[in-house]
């Protein structure tokens, strides 16, 4: 209790005080603001990745097209993958988790608010670093064996062609120093490395939040499924990111410092890269899809007016998918020279994933069965998720038949499969969540007519864009193909795909208009617009800065629903007489806390620290010149300096004489 007095209350900077305006966003440690920033950034990259996809589709609309150069096409499909995976689906998942996790477990913030801010700023700096390749990166012609340079037609060297072009998988040695000599691939390797740091910090933070910050009475099996899926995702991140970190370090060292890990000419093994990459890469798929599964598991019960069918089964199936997900990586490499035993083993382990996935699908169906289904926009997206994800899951089973996969791998059949999983799955789930929780951000609901228009255009566009890819793949269209021959008859189907892609783009425009319009003019939502079930809806919309005026006490799964509804003798839900009164009371009480509430103070250091990392990365890329060396030192000084400042900055400025001893804990409520 005496420690505070001995510590300096301000360190390098005066403690930021603003709660509004530009600086409040830079220095905030509020999980909601961080979640919103994550969300907008992710959506921006969704637009960028989508535009890249449209360019790809324009190129492929007909055979032997000249719309893009080969270099541009390769750069576009590579950055499309990197952007959608690392800069859209992952951070948008982080956005949902950031915003919702404390609300759903009944906490005022995450366990480590400043680390939360740090993870967001590191994400942003990594993303900007990655895309700064446009200004600082270069692509030079490929080198053949013995360092013979290839030839590029001058007209091929364009701005877009200068983006990283090794694919998101960055297979070695094609993405190694010999065959991708320009610095563009370095930006991809180091950018993903920085993004990984952000995800790792988030993962630790979310796990501790879930383990230690739940509201009183919220036992593990009373947590909303979204919280469970966040936990599973965080574990996946925790255990898969270090592996890709090692692979990325090796790749960077091969490129920048001459190590020989994957360089066949020096005795290295390119297949090791594949193992390391997919040891991360396959869990990554579940990192992308599990949050969406969590969202859907929240939305379906609300609009079926029934509890989630088989809650425990859904939860454990999610855990099972994650666990099995670490044992299937080599199914991405069936066409490498694995032994028959390994091929068979990975084929079988891949099949087993279908079982927990099936359990989820059937339980979602069971949730809707016998319900009273309201076709609101979030519900449409959630139903769309279930229907489309089934297709992606089943085509996944056909891949597990290893000899079939020898035909299918690296064709558009795979592209179709994972877009059904990641677009039909993850993105439909994300939109369900955006429509569903929009009131929590704004206090308004999104326009339903526009929302449904968005859904149907997207549904049609999505199937038009990705269903024909199954056929194209089985007809032998390989992936990452800049051109295809007229004799292949791929043309009409590809044209259909391109039209589908533009249809999706149109639906996204509808969404963006709806979002912008509804933010200002949407109908007021009140406290409980959907007649919801979970405790994030027991607090006013938009969410007050302190979340809960009083720490909630939870007595059951779907706590809020049970506050409002009882059951009659048949087991049918009956709204309690005082439910409306309760909602009004919650709304009023949530806005008027009985006593002032402590929140963690803002801080400059997370932002500053995040600035240091890309400087080090630039330094590594340009380490041969003096500028690079200066940048490495500068970046290290900024990072370590802000770490020191951070260490000396108490979480909360002292206020009065009580409880001071806790102030340098990460969060007062942490215990």
């Amino acid at each position: 209790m005496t420690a505070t007095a001995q510590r300096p209350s301000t360190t390098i900077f005066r403690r930021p005080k603003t709660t509004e305006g530009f600086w409040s966003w830079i220095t905030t440690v509020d999980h909601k603001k961080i979640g919103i920033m994550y969300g907008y950034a992710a959506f921006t990259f969704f637009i960028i990745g989508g535009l890249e996809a449209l360019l790809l589709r324009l190129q492929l609309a007909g055979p032997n097209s000249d719309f893009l150069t080969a270099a541009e096409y390769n750069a576009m499909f590579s950055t499309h993958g990197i952007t959608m995976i690392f800069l859209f689906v992952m951070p948008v998942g982080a956005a949902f988790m950031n915003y919702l996790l404390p609300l759903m477990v009944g906490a005022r913030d995450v366990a480590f608010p400043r680390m939360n801010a740090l993870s967001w700023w590191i994400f942003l700096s990594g993303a900007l670093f990655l895309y700064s390749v446009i200004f600082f990166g270069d692509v030079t012609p490929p080198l053949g064996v013995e360092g013979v340079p290839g030839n590029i037609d001058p007209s091929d060297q364009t701005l877009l062609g200068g983006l990283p072009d090794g694919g998101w998988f960055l297979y070695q040695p094609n993405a190694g120093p010999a065959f991708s000599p320009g610095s563009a691939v370095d930006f991809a390797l180091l950018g993903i490395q920085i993004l990984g740091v952000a995800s790792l910090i988030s993962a630790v933070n979310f796990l501790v939040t879930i383990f230690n910050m739940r509201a009183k009475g919220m036992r593990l099996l009373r947590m909303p499924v979204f919280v469970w899926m966040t936990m599973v995702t965080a574990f996946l991140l925790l255990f898969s990111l270090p592996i890709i970190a090692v692979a990325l370090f090796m790749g960077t060292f091969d490129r920048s410092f001459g190590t020989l890990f994957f360089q066949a000419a020096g005795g290295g093994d390119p297949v090791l890269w594949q193992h390391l990459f997919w040891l991360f890469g396959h869990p990554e798929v579940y990192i992308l899809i599990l949050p969406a599964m969590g969202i859907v598991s929240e939305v379906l019960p609300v609009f079926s007016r029934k509890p989630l069918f088989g809650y425990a089964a859904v939860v454990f199936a999610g855990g099972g998918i994650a666990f099995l997900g670490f044992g299937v990586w080599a199914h991405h490499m069936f066409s490498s020279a694995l032994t028959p035993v390994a091929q068979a083993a990975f084929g079988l382990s891949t099949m087993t994933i279908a079982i927990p996935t099936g359990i989820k699908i059937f339980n979602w169906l069971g949730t809707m069965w016998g319900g009273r289904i309201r076709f609101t926009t979030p519900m449409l997206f959630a139903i769309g998720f279930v229907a489309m994800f089934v297709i992606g899951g089943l085509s996944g089973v056909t891949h597990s038949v290893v000899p079939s996969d020898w035909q299918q791998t690296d064709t558009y059949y795979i592209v179709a499969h994972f877009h059904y999983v990641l677009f039909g799955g993850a993105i439909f789930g994300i939109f369900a969540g955006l429509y569903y929780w929009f009131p929590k951000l704004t206090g308004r609901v999104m326009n339903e007519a526009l929302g449904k228009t968005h859904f149907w255009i997207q549904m049609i566009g999505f199937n038009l864009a990705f269903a024909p890819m199954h056929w194209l793949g089985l007809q032998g269209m390989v992936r990452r193909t800049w051109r295809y021959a007229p004799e292949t008859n791929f043309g009409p189907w590809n044209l259909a795909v391109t039209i589908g892609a533009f249809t999706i783009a149109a639906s996204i425009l509808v969404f963006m208009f709806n979002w912008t319009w509804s933010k200002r003019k949407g109908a007021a939502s009140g406290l409980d617009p959907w007649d919801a079930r979970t405790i994030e809806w027991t607090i006013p919309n938009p969410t007050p800065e302190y979340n809960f005026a009083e720490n909630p006490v939870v007595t059951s799964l779907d706590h809020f629903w049970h506050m409002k509804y009882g059951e009659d003798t048949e087991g049918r839900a009956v709204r309690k007489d005082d439910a409306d009164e309760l909602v009004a009371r919650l709304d009023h009480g949530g806005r008027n806390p009985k006593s002032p509430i402590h929140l963690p103070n803002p801080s400059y250091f997370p932002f500053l620290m995040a600035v240091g990392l890309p400087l080090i990365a630039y330094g590594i890329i340009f380490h041969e010149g003096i500028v690079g060396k200066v940048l490495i030192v500068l970046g290290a000084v900024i990072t370590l300096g802000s770490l020191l400042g951070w260490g000396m900055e108490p979480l909360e400025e002292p206020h009065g004489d009580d409880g001071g001893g806790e102030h340098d804990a990460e969060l007062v409520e942490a215990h």
Partner: protein
Amino acid sequence: MKGQERPVPLGLARDGADTYTRPMVQHPRRRRSEESTRPFRFGGVALLAVLVSSCSFIEIDSPLTTFEPAGAIADRIDGLFWPVFWIATVIFALVNIAILYTVIAFRDRPGRKEPKQTHGNAKLEVTWTIIPALILAGIAIPTVRGVFDLTECAPDAMTVEIIGHQWWFEYQYPDHDIETANVLVMPAGQDVCAVMTSDDVMHNFWIPALNGKRYLVPGQVTLLPLHAYEPGEFWGHCAEFCGLSHSLMRARAQVLSLEDFDAWVVSQQSGAPVPAEGTPAWEGLQVFLNRGCTQCHTVDFEDNNLDIADNIVPDPGFNGPNLTHFASRNVFAGAYLPYEGLSYNEALTQWLANPPEVKPGSFMPNLGLTQQEIDDLIAWMETLS
């Protein structure tokens, strides 16, 4: 908090919602229950229309199709694919019919009561765990057998060494001392074992009609058994992204009857004829010898005593296809050229005039050949049968 008008809960039918008594704000013009099902119907019909109209293309197979297996291995794979495909299709249909039925039958509508609050059913959970497991076990058995039967080459198989280059495949027949490119020639009815490696990055060799695909890894050797029942020509493609012109790295397999194959072997073992002096072909040969082509390309001449033969010792670092029997192959430039709408000679002219323009990144540079030089070269290359 102003505006107590709250559209809560959205989309729930008002009239007849007997157990649900709380006041709700309705959209002024339309009843929500109608609004919510109409787009649903419309969307379903539109989706169906798209699916039906797209069926018209379905009859046209691509030369790369996996649906027309032409050998024992590809046949076996095809036989594995279809049962699984149909199982998947049936499950897909059942699940989606169930979804459609559920959302239609249990949609909110006037008079619908609040649902019973069921939390789950242990018997159902067990059922839908075990049934998929059984189906998968049924799929697993033929899968495992297929894997063990299909990964290794037959002991009496003829060996072809396949070497991947950016961006073309080289084929060597060690038993016959033949070196060729782009077109893999093999006998019908006989097992062939492709012994593969790569010269630079990873490639992936794939002739869909003859087998699935297998990586070519630099510094390592991988095996791919191939088999064809009947003579014919089959298309192939490099399936792993291998750099700038990956999409133009293609392959052909030409399957010959045993007699034709033997004849092909004999013709390939002969050297190239030396053209008569003064002919366009002779001029073409001079272009070949004097404009740097020999840095990368080998041509074995019939007359080994010829002075010019000594010139043709490519730098090992530069590697281009062996051109001795260039004209015996119907495709060139990584089996990319010619394509439909571009004749052989037109394609060859374009290629020789500016290779990097035709094939980005190509290690064959633009030599600035004149049209006359190109014509002469083509005249000479036609003699390389």
